[in-house]
């Protein structure tokens, strides 16, 4: 089976991508298509006094130019993607239009859109638009934005706090009163995000005769995107269709098409197909950002290294907002609730602030919020380990939830499905050969070389169903048998790089007994009800629905076969698309033959059972939906599966330059039952690369005026193959009792662990100098300065 899947993967997925045959949105060209370009604000905070487009309109080939003010009456504001005010929380939703009306709040905020006969002309016209700004004071630092006299982004709010939630889990006072030692831990993580190889792009085609808008976009949530676009355009949802061609990478930032609605509006106005694609600079400026946060907490410990509780303050910098242009604001919740991770804590209490500043909007990026809580607890434990003279593994073994304690209700409400944390960590230590490296460290120090060993653990809450948001957790799948013997699977578990099609083909082939090449997967269409891949939910919701539907179809097929072959239903099995009798090898029929008999020659009456005929069940297809059983009873138990992982690494610090080199990296993950090993390992590799990039050098840098200084890949440093060491991976499989396959969501986990692994390794390398790291990225100059302070 696995070889066949490998062949399928190469032929159907990889070959078109590496040979340039895959179809991306920008490859779609329609007759009479026009081209759009979008003018972004030069100012981070300013009132728009006037926009003069006359000169631009004179350029031959320019068809139309629209501005926010003139659109205002024709469209609706961008709808929100989450409204937690309904849960009684401080949660503000700004009124935001696709094009700024009277004020701009970040550099790159769309101001006007130009349509021309080609993109070059549109770009020429863009330079001729004259915008008169009245600059306003800018705020880019969230702590400054929280001060009383800070410039206000939304005057009507009276302050810059979009979200405030006081999280109280357990009795914090009581727990702290038992503490032998209280440690203060601060951690600041810079602004960065995922930047896919394919920037944003959109082809919108409004057909006046049918009053239908077709939209092609690289998107991970076409079902929600259709609703979003229809809402802005004030059109019935059923008159909008979103189609997703190949996607050139998605890390959470393909969820909300806030800028892509602009070409949609233009297509509706001009009744012509419109294409929009952006430059890398525009992508950096206005694609949503992530991370950018600060923890300041106290952690209570017993003297033996047991952690009791954590309390403190958390600030997330949302930039301009995180509820309408994307869905970043809600990440504040898992950021806090994932703090207890793999450990038994008594209480946590966190004041969490989501603050608005004059920077690009806040969105989703692999990890979403789970990275943030996990990173905090791992930081706390690594610091505590040194404090109590324990090794980083010892302190974890002391605090782990034990294998016999599952299902485990975490204090923050999550219901952990299964796991064996000590086993995973032990395997990672073994894989690294940690004792060998500790000995090497000792020897090398004598020769003035400083290597460090770092490790961290994580638990990834995956598969969310979040009330009052576009992330509720609904999902469907349809599986159909056609008369050519092919199986069509309809599922919106879109492949944004995570090989979801491979997983679908694997489970259908296995559960139905058909060849991979006979399976066709249809995905990326807003007509399929399903929320798409995010929150590592593909194998949880998508695959579970597909498996349920496949099993239902198999049952139907076998019932019909039993009648045709005059054989007992239980005595039949399907292999490579042929139904066989277990006892009589003469009795067999291919599913293709069966489908033909049922549908056409002779037809249903002669082939289906009486029961099926009476119920009108004449087609060989099944539809199924799936919902997370763990999220039904308690609303705070938002996630479904909880995979875990332990990474460990050896790094070397060049004391003179401060440069960190990763020498060895190992990763052990327990993702439940593995459906497709190659897909899992590719995700682990990619996530670790992103995690290492994030901790070492990726950074979106704004100056005081709110100008983004990193708008190319020579300034925003994305790791290349040279920067990433060979990664050794191993797996432990503790199946999930809640999903159909036993698999657990695992896409976000791999990015969560590396930052703390590297930070703790650097601290370990520099232990003789007592260097404490509380801020990233660890660019050489930062480490050089830390060393300068202590030497």
């Amino acid at each position, binding site marked *: 089976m696995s070889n066949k899947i490998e062949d399928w993967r190469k032929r159907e997925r990889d070959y078109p991508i590496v040979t340039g045959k895959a179809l991306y949105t920008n490859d779609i060209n329609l007759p009479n298509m026009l081209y759009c370009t979008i003018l972004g604000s030069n100012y981070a905070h300013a009132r728009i006094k006037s926009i003069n487009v006359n000169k631009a309109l004179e350029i031959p080939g320019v068809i139309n130019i629209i501005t926010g003010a003139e659109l205002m009456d024709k469209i609706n504001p961008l709808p929100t993607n989450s409204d937690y005010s309904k849960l009684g929380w401080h949660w503000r939703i700004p009124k935001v239009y696709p094009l700024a009306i009277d004020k701009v709040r970040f550099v790159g905020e769309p101001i006007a859109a130009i349509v021309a006969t080609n993109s*070059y002309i549109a*770009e020429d016209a863009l330079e001729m638009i004259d915008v008169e700004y009245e600059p306003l004071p800018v705020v880019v630092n969230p702590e400054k934005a929280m001060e009383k006299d800070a410039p206000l982004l939304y005057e009507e709010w009276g302050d810059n706090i979009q979200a405030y939630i006081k999280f109280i889990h357990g009795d914090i006072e009581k727990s702290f009163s038992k503490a032998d030692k209280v440690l203060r831990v601060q951690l600041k993580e810079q602004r960065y995000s995922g930047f896919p190889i394919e920037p944003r792009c959109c082809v919108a085609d409004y057909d006046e005769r049918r009053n239908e808008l077709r939209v092609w976009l690289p998107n991970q949530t076409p079902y929600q995107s259709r609703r979003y676009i229809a809402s802005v355009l004030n059109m019935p949802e059923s008159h909008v269709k979103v189609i997703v061609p190949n996607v050139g990478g998605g890390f959470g930032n393909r969820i909300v098409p806030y800028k892509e609605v602009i070409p949609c509006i233009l297509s509706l106005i001009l009744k012509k197909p419109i294409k929009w*694609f*952006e430059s890398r*600079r525009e992508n950096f400026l206005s694609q949503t950002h992530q991370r950018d946060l600060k923890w300041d907490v106290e952690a209570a410990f017993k003297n033996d290294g047991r952690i009791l509780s954590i309390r403190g303050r958390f600030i997330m910098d949302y930039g301009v907002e995180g509820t309408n242009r994307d869905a970043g604001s809600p990440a504040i919740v898992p950021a806090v609730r994932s703090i207890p991770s793999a450990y038994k804590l008594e209480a946590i209490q966190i004041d969490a602030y989501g603050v608005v500043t004059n920077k690009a909007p806040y969105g989703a990026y692999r990890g979403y919020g789970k990275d943030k809580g996990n990173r905090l607890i791992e930081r706390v434990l690594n610091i505590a380990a040194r404090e109590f003279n324990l090794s980083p593994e010892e302190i974890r073994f002391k605090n782990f939830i034990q294998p016999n304690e599952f299902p485990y209700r975490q204090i923050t409400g999550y219901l952990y499905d299964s796991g064996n944390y000590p086993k995973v960590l032990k395997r990672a230590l073994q894989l690294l050969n940690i004792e060998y490296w500790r000995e090497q460290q000792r020897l090398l120090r004598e020769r003035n070389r400083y290597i460090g060993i770092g490790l961290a653990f994580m638990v990834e809450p995956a598969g969310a169903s979040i009330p009052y948001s576009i992330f509720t957790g609904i999902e469907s799948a349809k599986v159909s048998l056609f008369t050519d013997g092919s199986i069509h699977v309809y599922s919106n578990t879109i492949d944004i790089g995570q090989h979801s099609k491979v997983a679908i083909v694997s489970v259908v082939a296995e559960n139905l007994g058909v060849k991979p090449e006979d399976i066709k997967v249809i995905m990326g269409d807003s007509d399929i009800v399903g929320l798409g891949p995010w929150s590592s939910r593909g194998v949880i919701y998508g695959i579970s629905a597909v498996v349920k539907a496949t099993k239902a179809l198999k049952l139907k097929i076998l019932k019909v076969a039993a009648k045709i072959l005059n054989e007992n239903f239980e005595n039949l099995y399907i292999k490579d698309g042929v139904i066989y009798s277990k006892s009589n090898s003469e009795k067999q029929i291919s599913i293709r033959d069966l489908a033909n008999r049922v549908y056409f020659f002779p037809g249903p009456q002669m082939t289906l059972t009486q029961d099926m005929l009476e119920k009108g069940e004449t087609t060989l297809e099944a539809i199924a939906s799936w919902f997370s059983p763990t999220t039904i009873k308690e609303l705070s138990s938002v996630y479904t599966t909880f995979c875990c992982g332990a990474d460990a690494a050896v790094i070397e610090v060049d004391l003179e*330059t401060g440069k960190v080199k990763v020498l060895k990296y190992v990763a052990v993950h327990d993702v439940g039952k593995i459906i497709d090993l190659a897909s899992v390992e590719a995700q682990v590799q990619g996530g670790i690369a992103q995690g290492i990039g994030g901790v*070492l050098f990726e950074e979106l840098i704004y100056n005081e005026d709110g100008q983004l200084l*990193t708008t190319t890949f020579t300034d925003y440093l994305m790791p290349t193959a040279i920067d990433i060491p060979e990664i050794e991976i191993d797996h432990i499989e503790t199946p999930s009792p809640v999903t159909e396959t036993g698999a657990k969501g695992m896409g976000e986990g791999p990015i969560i662990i590396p930052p703390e692994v590297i930070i703790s390794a650097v601290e370990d390398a520099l232990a003789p100098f007592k260097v404490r790291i509380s801020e990233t990225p660890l*660019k050489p100059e930062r480490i050089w*300065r830390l060393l300068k302070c202590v030497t």
Partner: protein
Amino acid sequence: MCPLPKAFEYFAPENINEALDLLNRFKDKAKILAGGQSLIPLMKYRLLSPEYVIDLRKLKDLIFIKEKDQNRISIGALTTYIMIEFSPLIEQKCPLLKEVTNSLSDLQVKNRGTIGGSICHADPAAHYPPAMLALNAQFKLMSKENGERIVNAEDFFIDAYTTLIKPDEILTEIEIDAFQNDFGWGFEYLNYGGAGYPIVIAITILKMRNDVCEDVRIALGGVSLTPIRAKIIESSLKGEKLNSEIIDKIIFEKMEEMRINPPSDIHASSEYRKEMAKVLTRRAIKKALKRLKGDGV
């Protein structure tokens, strides 16, 4: 904004005379396309919008690497990075240039980018300009009106992205030192990762006699708006019996005397660049010494 340039007129002359004719006609309204690894992105972002682009891709005569005499190698301006990296002559006679080329950019850029293009672009963080200084390079510049002139690398770079090439001139040939076996060399650069440019580059070429430094050249990149020769350090090293302590001492003292004032940017402060110039220069000299001793590096 789409990544698209303003309209321009494109020419691909058949020979150098045609190219010089065109350049003479359009002067600073024209830009020379010699690989396009910097020019095209600049045009796409409209940071540069020349009215005319003169593409030298047909000038195959300007693609060569040859030995001029015992001591000098001549390289055509349109020779790509990849040709230099894999040239047996460069490997034998100028391994320093091979290593410098190996360390820059990625395969796609190396297949397109040319040595002449890089030198004329004069990015203050680029690899080739300091290498040219270290290798005593001379550039042959041609124009229609004035024919040919030869310029020393040391005089060529006058500011960031600015050289003394005139609007009607084309760089056609680069001449560099060939190595004799009694020379050692060291090439050190510090970059952070990703596609980032180096923060600082230090290149040294060293000749010793009986443990005494007979000749040394040190070129630095990233510490100023142009590549520089560290002549104060060079003259202090000459005549010294070199060991680790002396190298450290001279560099720490003399680098201060040079009063370099590197630029600060988002990647590194002036102070850090200055310190790294010391660290990398020291390392480069030690590597050169090691090579001379045949210790391997």
